[in-house]
């Protein structure tokens, strides 16, 4: 059990980021990140489901015996996603028309089962909720960066269609950064997704390595007599 909340936040956003560190959930990631807006929609919908499933799994953890936990978690997640799908379709229909494409994809997101298994089934409800939220936000962040990069290279825009997802107040996000740009098609196609993901993973490693190096340097400078 852990209730080290700053640690949970750091893990979710960076250290154990679903995509950048755990390299999970690549199917929906590669499929939807052709624009930053799509990445944002997928990320937010996943975050909602992740918080719900983590909360449920953590509150039921005492009764779910280890031998049958995986099928039970799968049932919980699939039911949750289906209920969210129906409720959005019925009562938030405009949002559903935009997000609807992503919601069915969430069922196959292994990161959700991964968090249920690795964290929520061993921790108290508040910690599990926070973990779900942070893992979801970390996932969203990675998707938006990937989508933004691919969109910029592929069609020269950023956040195209954001006002449909978030409401007309967010139309200012929609930028056409390179006017008259015909687009680098590869970036939008699936191979572009793999290339972007590779660059992103390498980028995270580089930042981590540099941070570690700086930490080592300051450590040796502060204690020169130890060397």
């Amino acid at each position, binding site marked *: 059990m852990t209730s080290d909340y700053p640690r949970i936040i750091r893990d979710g956003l960076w250290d154990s980021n679903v995509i950048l560190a755990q390299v999970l959930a690549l199917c929906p990631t590669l499929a939807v990140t052709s624009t930053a807006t799509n990445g944002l929609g997928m990320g937010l919908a996943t975050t909602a489901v992740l918080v719900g499933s983590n909360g449920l799994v953590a509150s039921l953890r005492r009764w779910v015996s280890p*031998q049958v936990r995986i099928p039970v978690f799968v049932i919980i997640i699939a039911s949750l996603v*289906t209920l969210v799908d*129906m409720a959005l379709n*019925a009562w938030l229909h405009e949002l559903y028309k935009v997000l609807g494409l992503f919601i069915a994809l969430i069922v196959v997101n292994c990161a959700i089962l991964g968090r249920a298994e690795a964290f929520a089934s061993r921790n108290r409800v508040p910690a599990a909720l926070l973990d779900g939220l942070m893992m979801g936000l970390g996932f969203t962040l990675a998707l938006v960066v990937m989508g933004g990069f691919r969109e910029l290279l592929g069609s020269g825009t950023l956040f195209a269609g954001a006002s449909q997802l978030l409401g007309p107040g967010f139309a200012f996000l929609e930028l056409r950064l390179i006017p008259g740009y015909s687009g680098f098609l590869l970036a*939008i196609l699936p191979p572009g997704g793999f290339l972007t993901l590779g660059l992103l993973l390498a980028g995270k490693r580089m930042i981590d390595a540099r941070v570690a190096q700086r930490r080592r340097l300051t450590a040796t400078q502060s204690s020169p007599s130890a060397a």
Partner: protein
Amino acid sequence: MNTDTRPAYQGHLGYQAGLLGGFATLAGALLVGGHLLTQDAIALRLQEDLSRSLEQVIPARLHDNDPAASPLELSDSDGAPVRAYRALRGHEVTGVALRVTGYGYAGAIDLVLGLDPAGRILGVRVLAHKETPGLGDQIDAAKGDWIRHFDGKSLGDPPADRWGVKRDGGVFDQFAGATISPRGVVKAIKEGLMLFREHRAALLVPPVVTTQGQGRDPRPRPSPTP
């Protein structure tokens, strides 16, 4: 998971079977409940979507009835049902909207196709689809202008063998990275136009508005020639 802190009964096969069965039953019950709770609202939303799409493909100035109210059931060459909605002004059919289905990259694409009595396209809109976000979803009027290029086209314009996407030797653009979605849409529109030609006489007979508001069987009466 810490197995040693668990009560012994949780290790029994019966408990586990019961737990799994219980969860499956509970989940099933919840989903049935959710479905019952939302199905009316969803049907209503879909009806609203349909009315709104019909408004987009049949201009309001063309009719004074509610085209969504009295659909006519046709069947296409494969025997699948196709709904036709008729726009009336006075007692004259001024437009017909057909609900046709195309098949894209990720399954069915539901379209509504608006035609004037001569068989020219007034407008086409996508009602529902599951095409790839950012690629195939450009067929949606909310995401791109592509679907408007069909306005004013008919079965002879372009000629029948040119009714396809450019990759197939037709006149309609595909999108960068997505050929299958536009191909499905173009094919569905062409089939809709052929269906209209086949059933034109029946479609242009105005529906008889009965007391139930269901003018299903058109009584034979001289149809106005457009």
